[in-house]
């Protein structure tokens, strides 16, 4: 069974952390992953930096620009991850935009993910129908789980369709907006979380965008299976460096 599915069966709320590969320093990738696991994080999203990240707010834009300046590429990321499964066992997901993956070759990219032990992909600008018609077979051939996003504006009909072609979890974007840390959620977001919770979808939901601390993590996971923190962690890394992972994770989990 895919590590993502295994993890989703655990009887707990899951904490997933996003970070941009190659940031703050080019070769921080492996140590950040190892420290996240060591300190109790359940799942990791490794951001593959892109020059034009449409769905991202200023924090992740800046980390992506820095990572690219540092020299990060798809090829280098796979080299860094070559031995990652000797030290880490939690699910690893690559989150990136479609263009760099297309240039690598979608099939070659998937094959490489399988080879190094990546379990799934989140590609915000890959349309659901393009995945369904062109790429689903390839993803399945390499045992990869593709994770789709839904938002407060996604229609019920579309959520049901996305649920039907998903086989891991659904990434629930917390509000209309790009990625970025917020200090609290509004009432309308709480209503949205409840509405989706009540749909009884076959895939569990993990909430992302705007989660920054213990409070927002707790709120987001009242109905959902887990939550993803990105920008707040990136900010922490830029202020305190890659050796400060424990401090950040403790702030959420302890």
């Amino acid at each position, binding site marked *: 069974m895919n590590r993502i599915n295994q993890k989703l069966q655990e009887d707990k709320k899951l904490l997933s952390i996003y970070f941009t590969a190659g940031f703050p320093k080019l070769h921080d990738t492996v140590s950040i992953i190892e420290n996240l696991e060591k300190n109790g994080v359940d799942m990791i999203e490794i951001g593959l930096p892109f020059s034009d990240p449409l769905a991202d707010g200023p924090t992740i834009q800046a980390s992506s620009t820095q990572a690219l300046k540092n020299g990060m590429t798809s090829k280098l990321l796979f080299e860094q991850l070559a031995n990652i499964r000797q030290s880490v066992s939690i699910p690893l997901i690559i989150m990136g935009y479609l*263009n760099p993956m297309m240039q690598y070759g979608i099939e070659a990219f998937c094959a490489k993910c399988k080879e190094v032990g990546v379990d799934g992909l989140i590609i915000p600008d890959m349309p659901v129908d393009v995945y369904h018609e062109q790429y689903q077979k390839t993803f399945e051939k390499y045992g990869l789980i593709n994770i789709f996003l*839904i938002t407060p504006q996604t229609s019920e009909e579309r959520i049901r369709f996305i649920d039907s072609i998903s086989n891991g979890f659904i990434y629930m974007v917390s509000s209309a907006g790009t990625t970025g840390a917020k200090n609290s959620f509004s009432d309308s977001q709480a209503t949205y979380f409840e509405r989706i919770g009540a749909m009884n979808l076959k895939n569990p939901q993990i909430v992302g965008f705007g989660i920054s601390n213990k409070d927002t993590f707790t709120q987001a996971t009242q109905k959902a299976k887990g939550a993803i923190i990105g920008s707040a962690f990136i900010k922490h890394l830029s202020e305190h460096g890659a050796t400060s992972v424990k401090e950040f994770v403790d702030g959420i989990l302890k």
Partner: protein
Amino acid sequence: MGKIEAMKKTYHVNEKGYYGNFGGAYIPEMLYPNVEELRKHYLQIMYEDSFQKEFKQLLKDYVGRPSPLFHAERLSQKYHTKIYLKREDLNHTGAHKVNNTIGQILMAKRLGKTRIIAETGAGQHGVATATVCALMGMKCIVYMGEIDISRQAPNVARMKMLGAEVRAAKSGSKTLKDATNEAIRDWISNPLDTHYIIGSVVGPHPYPDMVARFQAVISEEIEWQLQEKEGRSYPDHVIACVGGGSNAAGAFYQYLDDERVNLIAVEAAGKGIHSGESAATSVLGEDGIIHGSRTLLMQTKDGQITEPYSISAGLDYPGVGPMHAHLYESKRAEFISITDDEAMTAGLELSQLEGIIPAIETSHALAVFEQRKFKPEEIVVLNLSGRGDKDLDTYIKYFNL
């Protein structure tokens, strides 16, 4: 329609939003409801009688259409062929861009939107958007790269005077592509009340098709104007410059599937195609995704989008609309690249032969006459996409005027 005719090759968009392999809507889910709303309704709305009536009225009384089709005799003499200039430079705000912004503001109104966002590079599309927002009393926010804001001060002032808010795009390379990213991010954050008026035939479907249809007024007029002047509705060649591709799409539109007409798309070669400072996307680009569209774009081997260069701010976009990517790959259109120097020389030449100072974008199209021979009996229509007022500084510096 007979079977054979039904299967006839077409260079227009198909039902799924593609031109050959190019196009589509590669957008984050956050944008899906907005783009889908537009996709579902755009054709129905734009072909309603009341829409067409209002659109045509504004093009006539506000923009000043039809724009003349001018027989440029001295230019024709010099290049031994028959050259007509389609005078989009005479439109209100000085370029073809306003055809699209008039269409889209009417679309936005019918969709019930109250807030308009746009991206701009040189500021031409920003000015055209600010103009129609003032006309309709809509709130207008224009994203512009921080670097472009300092390069294009007069247009920034025009937008402000028209009541628009100009927001600096400070991410990435701080130019047009980043301004476009910021506009898209704004739309993601304001999904309900906002319409995004994109400035060229780029972006996710249905934008390329919608913008092309609004710009199609250019070739619709060329048809009857040529009929009047030449007794036939089509030329042998149509020449237009290509940044994102909207003025070319408009000039080509009625002739896309008419193979009697040779289409010539002119890109900016900057300091030379292989100089590292160029915007010749068809030559230098690879198949990929930019701003929600699958098309040809300039990028690194690793898929990072690179920054193009041209002396003309309106041509330095790292991609090209999906219609043009398909026209290139299918060889339906001829693509020619023109350097900064060739364009500047051609701009000066038109000024002195015909008394028309063209936008530097258009000067690229004009430089084709030095590159490629036409026959004396051939009819060539060149789309004069804009006037050169905005470029005077650049001309002054270049020629030490």
